[in-house]
């Protein structure tokens, strides 16, 4: 059975490292894997989405509505934007950080309130946490991606050591300690 993880956020937040880590880990675990990224114009502060799919044999590189086992969101509004992609019974793991999009900045729209509660009311299981604060505690605001991976790892049968090994193999040596710390804070054991 193919499992689907969507990673969503704002262009420039570091979702490519998260998908690289997942792809590397899942391939090592013996799965067929596909990871689909977005390059180009959307990266300029736009809404970005990365698809990670794994199983015995994966065909489609993308995930469609109602198919995601997990939505990992770097930003609250983006979690809500992609909620329809969540499989019934799936889970949203979300960083509670708010980043105003241009229509909010210009005053043409307001940033929606109580999104976590609204997503839960609409039937989604939501695991929300302030990853930015944890990332800063680990040593860098940029480690939000690995904090989220730490949180996501709680829902997998893959032992923490395997995730930690994948981090060592995917990030430059001088950032390994910082990212291991971020992973630990995100996993919260």
């Amino acid at each position: 059975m193919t499992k689907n993880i969507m990673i969503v956020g704002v262009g420039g937040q570091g979702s490519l490292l998260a998908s690289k880590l997942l792809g590397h880990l899942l391939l090592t675990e013996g799965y067929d894997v596909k990871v689909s990224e977005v390059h180009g114009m959307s990266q300029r502060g736009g809404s970005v989405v990365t698809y990670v799919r794994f199983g015995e044999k994966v065909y489609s590189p993308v995930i469609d509505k109602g198919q995601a086992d997990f939505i990992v969101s770097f930003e609250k509004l983006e979690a809500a934007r992609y909620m329809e992609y969540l499989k019934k019974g799936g889970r949203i793991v979300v960083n509670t950080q708010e980043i105003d999009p241009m229509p909010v900045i210009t005053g043409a729209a307001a940033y929606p309130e109580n999104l976590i509660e609204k997503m839960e009311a609409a039937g989604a299981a939501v695991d929300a946490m302030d990853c930015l604060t944890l990332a800063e505690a680990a040593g860098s605001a940029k480690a939000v991606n690995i904090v989220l991976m730490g949180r996501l790892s709680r829902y997998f049968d893959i032992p923490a050591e395997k995730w930690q090994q994948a981090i060592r193999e995917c990030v430059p040596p001088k950032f390994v300690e910082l990212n291991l710390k971020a992973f630990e804070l995100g996993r919260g054991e």
Partner: protein
Amino acid sequence: MKELMLGNKALARGLYEAGCSVVSSYPGTPSTEVTEEAAKYDEIYCEWAPNEKVAMEVAFGASLAGKRSFCGMKHVGLNVAADPLFTCSYTGVNAGMVICVADDAGMHSSQNEQDSRHHAIAAKVPMLEPADSAEALEFAKKAYELSEQFDTPVIIKMCTRIAHSQSVVETGSRVVPETVPYEKNIAKYVMMPGNAIRRHPIVEERTRKLTEYAESCEFNRVEMGGTKLGIITSSTSYQYAKEVFGESASILKLGMVNPLPVKLILDFAAKVEKLVVVEELDPIIENHCRQLGLTVSGKDVLPVCGEFFPNMIAEKLGGPVPEYNTLDEALPGRPPVMCAGCPHRGLFYTLSKNKCTVLGDIGCYTLGAVAPLSAMEMTLCMGASVSAIHGFNKALGKESEGKTVAVIGDSTFMHSGMTGLANIAYNQSNSTVIILDNSITGMTGHQQNPTTGYNIKGDPAGKIDLESLCRAMGFNRVVVVDPYDLAACDKAVKEELAAEEPSVIISRRPCALLKYVKHNPPLHVDSDKCVGCKSCMRLGCPAISVKNKKAVIDSTQCVGCGVCEQLCKFGAL
């Protein structure tokens, strides 16, 4: 060894393993990484050419000399390179020559979603279409064999979802074939009428042989499953069809999309009850089936516009569609924006303030059209701003000359802007052209170009001096401004629009995302001084927002460019 590899990187790996020696390309999403990855192999000579036509001619020259060559581009780039393509179909090749074109159905980062298969058909050149990274690698290698066997350039067509998705590949080692000796052959390589007349029938005969080859080649395969539904498909559409129908339908997967087989399709059609073609964009395979007299479904149910998704195929063809929960809430969109500290912002603010008519071009600065700046009124194709302003001003004369500008980036100017500028200099319209020189090709992810002074590997290279170039073309008025200095921008725009002769303004500052660019500390708002006038908001900077009627600066985004500071009359920034 098994590894996960981006489709574009896998294609580059295929070039490497096939012994490709010369690569020349122009960057364009979603094709760029093929050449960037190829450049990581020291055994391959790689370069960024000024445009796709030049790139293809470089690749042709290398093939003529006897080395396997490659050029890569996006779909619209193939329009630029169509001229050499159509005639190197006639000459054929010496050593193998492979062209990659990457289509962008869904227009993730493009100005149209044309279907490049039309180019292959019109130029009478074979086209392969991989459906994942492993095929991208394999097809690249086999494309060279095909090119040499049939004496033709071969096109590999990628699409966004194949180019930018990673899947599992197994790599092999590089095998470099012997250089094919170059021999003078005027009848084959000099395409003047007397020779070309003799080459055209050879091209037609080649297409006939390639069609025969397509009947049983390894690129096309039948996967028999349930016979109620038979699907003919290729590329990412194949993956969606397998995802939705698995073994319940039979599939004819085409890896070679030009020329299309005849017998293979007729035989497949005879084995299934209902025949459907699942192809993105235009109904090319479908029309081919109709010409063969088959009853076939395709664009009667599936859209011509946009890219496909699995649920869409399931819904239209009767497969299972999953249910999902919806959020009953109108969410604000998140369109792409110019980055905080983007050097284009100050210049576009100036154009917006002066109510200029702005004819634009292709690049990050196309985002100048987005609110609140909304300072762009036309974008067509690479270089069109410079040519179109000439036509605009010739049509309206004094009515438009004093308020109309063309804006074009440094890389786009090198690509196709120079010829338009030559036309202004030659046919003399009183036009004002602004070159937005951010010292890099920005939108595609920072590629060097002829004005930056560095080559694809980041080593020092030739550097074209824009000021000297414009003066040499006959422009007396060439001014350089720093777009972070709003007063200087305003002065330059007003003066050059008022001038009675054509002029060029070079707005010069490196892209704020370049690693060597040093940033200032983030600015802060003095909330006692801020009156909430929102003057700073007119810049459309993603680092500035208003909370509780006061401006707030996001210190994680602000790079201290100081442009907003110049707009604040209350010294609050």
